[in-house]
């Protein structure tokens, strides 16, 4: 080491090599500085934009769904908080047994089998940072417990969202009174989402499924807002960078329905069905001046509150298995033979086409021989005797079948069909409810579809009394009679009165344009209305005339036999009764029209007539009870 300490400092020291080192150093610093200048100063904005794009995400902000009120401002549908159990894969323990333990504990709190949670988690295909909904509709207690457990359940969280809650006329939570009208909301499924995504729906969004929730979806839903969120590298939202569009709340709707009347209609129909053992029934009440539906009951009904929180498999299966088909609104979605109530079409057609006058008398028969048919092929009148010679008004009042066979045959298929169409049969009324059926009206096309050139004369005759190849929805029939009751305007039935404020006051009324004005003379319509008044007063509808109502009740009964007799003595039949209440006989000022339909009664009375009677008694607060036992044949002669 001595040589080091005593060194004289003279050793080869290359200027050139030091210079080279210096040059290399200068080049390195120069290159790095140049590259930084390029990245930061020249291209800085581009990289900044890219960085923003990586860490920000545009998301939707849900808009509150509009409320639903009845015509008196009673709240029928509102939003209420609900809790959803969610998990984030990235935050769950990676170790399988630790993860299972977390899920097990969570499943115990929310009270489901652990497999329910693991299956949902396994089915999820998205980013591990995304929230996976595991279970909807947690109880408030379970939600709070999960929240408190916090750190013990890494990766498991509870989200709050708004779900629908439905009420009855008293504001009690009741999802059966108005379920077919108000409907419910349900989650968008994967196939629907593919279609709905373009319209701003989210993967786990809700959408209206029935009633006005479905038909008025776009109004109730509002417009979702857009927000720009900043997320950290693990995908958690750090802050809202900016709101691109504020959500626009859905509009509140006021229905034309009177929930109290709905209750009366529902109670009276339920009584009639129970008394007669009927499994399906419909009552619809309408203002025949405006087309506003005041009540629409389809029984059996379902509970829309069960759907709002997510119905269980078992409950849903029970609904599907019910022969009364509670999920369908029978008032608009199902079609039935209208029976004698359809005679309004035959009567109006015969008058307008000059087949008969209001005073011309025609013979009636116990059994009417069909022209062109072999001798002996006849169609009976309902009393199997006939009524002697009748004019049209009398025939309508007594509901003579053989009279209207003749009218239908004289009218011919085309003119009969066109009057059925004028009164709205065979086409949808266009009511703002989903799932409306069109019905069937006899036609040449129908016959050709059966492989025949034309309909049989007997078929046409039967169509004239609403049997055989005629099928209508209860709403179509009600609406046709409304045109009769109001003097000739076929209205567009509606269940939505307009938009309301949060207190349930109407702020923007909707107007529904009538479908058409009938090309029928006022006198002819008046004559049929008189006939309908006579249905009540002549006792054909038995004792309903004794109700002390504030007006001259007019109406028409109908029965339609079908199927085979269960015990040999009588066929099961549908019964109909439609009635309206003008101030005086024949007047066009009725404000209330009611129709009841009961499906497949083996009772001998007209169940529907008794139901309407009971409804009117209750709605007008009468201190009378003229109800008959609908199973008692001896006291009833109604067709």
């Amino acid at each position: 080491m001595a040589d080091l300490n005593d060194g004289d400092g003279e050793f080869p020291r290359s200027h050139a090599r030091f210079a080279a080192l210096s040059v290399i150093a200068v080049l390195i610093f120069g290159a790095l500085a140049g590259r930084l200048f390029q990245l930061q100063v020249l291209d800085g904005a581009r990289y900044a934009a890219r960085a923003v794009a990586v860490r920000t995400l545009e998301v939707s902000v849900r808009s509150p769904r509009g409320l639903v009120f009845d015509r008196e401002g009673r709240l029928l549908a509102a939003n209420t908080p609900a809790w959803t159990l969610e998990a984030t894969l990235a935050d769950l323990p990676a170790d399988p047994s630790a993860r299972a333990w977390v899920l097990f504990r969570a499943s115990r709190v929310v009270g489901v089998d652990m497999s329910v949670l693991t299956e949902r988690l396994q089915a999820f295909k998205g980013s591990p940072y995304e929230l996976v909904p595991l279970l909807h509709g947690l109880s408030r207690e379970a939600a709070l417990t999960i929240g408190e457990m916090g750190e013990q359940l890494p990766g498991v969280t509870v989200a709050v969202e708004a779900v629908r809650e439905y009420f009855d006329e008293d504001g009690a939570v009741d999802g059966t009174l108005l379920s077919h009208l108000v409907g419910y909301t349900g989650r968008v499924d994967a196939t629907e989402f593919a279609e709905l995504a373009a319209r701003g729906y989210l993967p786990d969004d809700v959408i209206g499924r029935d009633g006005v929730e479905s038909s008025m979806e776009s109004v109730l839903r509002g417009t979702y807002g857009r927000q720009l969120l900043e997320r950290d590298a693990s995908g958690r939202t750090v802050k809202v960078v900016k709101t691109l569009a504020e959500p626009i709340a859905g509009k509140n709707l006021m229905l034309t329905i009177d929930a109290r009347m709905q209750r009366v209609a529902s109670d009276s129909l339920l009584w009639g069905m129970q008394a007669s053992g009927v499994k399906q029934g419909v009552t619809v009440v309408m203002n025949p001046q405006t087309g506003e539906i005041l009540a629409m009951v389809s029984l059996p009904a379902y509970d829309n509150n069960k759907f709002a929180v997510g119905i269980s498999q078992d409950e849903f299966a029970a609904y599907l298995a019910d022969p009364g088909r509670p999920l369908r609104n029978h008032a608009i979605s199902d079609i039935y033979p209208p029976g004698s109530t359809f005679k309004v079409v035959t009567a109006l057609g015969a008058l307008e086409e000059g087949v008969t006058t209001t005073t011309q008398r025609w013979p009636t028969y116990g059994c009417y021989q069909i022209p062109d048919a072999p001798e002996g092929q006849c169609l009976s009148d309902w009393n199997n005797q006939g009524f002697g010679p009748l004019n049209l008004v009398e025939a309508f009042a007594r509901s003579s079948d053989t009279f209207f066979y003749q009218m239908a045959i004289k009218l011919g298929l085309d003119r009969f069909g066109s009057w059925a169409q004028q009164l709205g049969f065979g086409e949808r009324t266009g009511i703002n409810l989903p799932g409306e059926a069109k019905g069937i009206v006899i036609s040449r096309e129908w016959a050709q579809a059966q492989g025949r050139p034309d309909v049989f004369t007997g078929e046409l005759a039967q169509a004239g009394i609403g049997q055989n190849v005629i099928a209508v929805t209860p709403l179509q029939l009600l609406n046709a009679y409304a045109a009769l009751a109001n003097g000739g305007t076929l209205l567009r039935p509606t269940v939505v009165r307009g938009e309301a404020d949060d207190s349930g006051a109407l702020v923007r009324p909707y107007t529904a344009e009538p479908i058409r004005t009938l090309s029928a003379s006022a006198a002819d319509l008046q004559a049929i209305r008189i006939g309908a008044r006579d249905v009540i007063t002549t006792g054909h509808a038995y004792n309903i005339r004794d109700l002390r109502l504030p007006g001259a009740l007019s109406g028409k009964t109908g029965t339609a036999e079908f199927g085979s007799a269960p015990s040999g003595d009588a066929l099961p039949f549908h019964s109909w009764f439609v009635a309206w209440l003008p101030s005086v006989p024949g007047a066009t000022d009725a404000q209330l029209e009611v129709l009841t339909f009961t499906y497949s009664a083996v009772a001998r009375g007209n169940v529907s007539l008794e139901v309407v009677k009971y409804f009117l008694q209750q709605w007008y607060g009468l201190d009378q009870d003229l109800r008959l036992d609908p199973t008692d044949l001896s006291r009833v002669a109604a067709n």
Partner: protein
Amino acid sequence: MGTVTATFVETVRGRIWRSFDRQLFLYVALLISFGLVLGYSANYGVSGTPGTLSQTVKTVIWAAIGLTGFFVAASIDYHWLSTFTGPIYLAVLGLLVLTMLIGTHLFGAQMSISVAGLDFQSSEIAKVLMIVVLASYLHRRRERIGRLSTIVGAGLVMVIPTFLVYRQPDLGTALVFVAVLVGMLFLSGASIGWMALLGGAAIALAPLAIGAMHAYQRQRLFCFLDPNADPQGACYQLLQALNAVGSGGLLGQGLTAGRQNQLGYLPVQSTDFIFTVAGEELGFVGCAILLGLFALLTWRIVSIAWHARDSFGMLIAVGLASMILFQVLVNVGMVTGIMPVTGIPLPFVTYGGSSLVSLLFGMGILESVRMHTEKPTF
């Protein structure tokens, strides 16, 4: 040993401290401060585990230890080191072998060993010590410096520790060893012809080395050629780093205000990618100041090398200059996308106790070289 004692006494009495390089110390201090600030920002908002020290406090402690080492090294006549280069060399090899055997895994590599709770990254210590060993070897060969045997000999000295580091696997540090070897050979006066020939042969063998790499190393290595090749995978870190540096613009987003940094988009911000924090939060101006400090430091070290009294001192300085220059080039080049992604820390700035202590020890030796530039007067 008498002269050593005398020198030490001289040192304590402060005569030779008059030539202490204050600028070198200043630049080092500023760089450490830079690292402290950037490290603080990188960990801003990250809540530490209660009861443990924050990274900033740890860095201060390491800097204190390092400064003690710095002054001890500065106080000692660097010539003294050459008396036990053999034991140093063996210690380096022992440390690296020990790391291979009992090292703790860090980012998939066995890079550190834990002693009394403190992690030592043996390769960081090895770098500085190998510079001393190599300087001593080349100094002893100064009469035969132009011969091929010098180059081969120096290569043999370096090959074992380089291989051990490479096997950790720590490709970056292995490359630093190579850079240091080349830099020191070049300035020692070794034959440029032979160096070029051997260098060419080494480059020709490079594909073999690349082929022997782990797949993840290879992928990361080539990201800089096309960062969009695998934007979610191997090149994700590089893309995020480029976005961060680029979005700093001219003046930066402000300390602790860099969104990429604060939201965790930057990979291992406080270590190898610390420069991205400077880029995003301090902008081009801040980066230029940081690079400027490195440039000034390099200038001081080269100047010390130039003025060194003998080739041992000169070569220590050249080795340290080569090391710092290479690490700055590769580290900053990596985060700016012009160099492959290798795990090389930014000297003084990247958080790491062993690195900081080793570097400060190296700077202390430099001060010793500087202060012993003049022939001691007795």
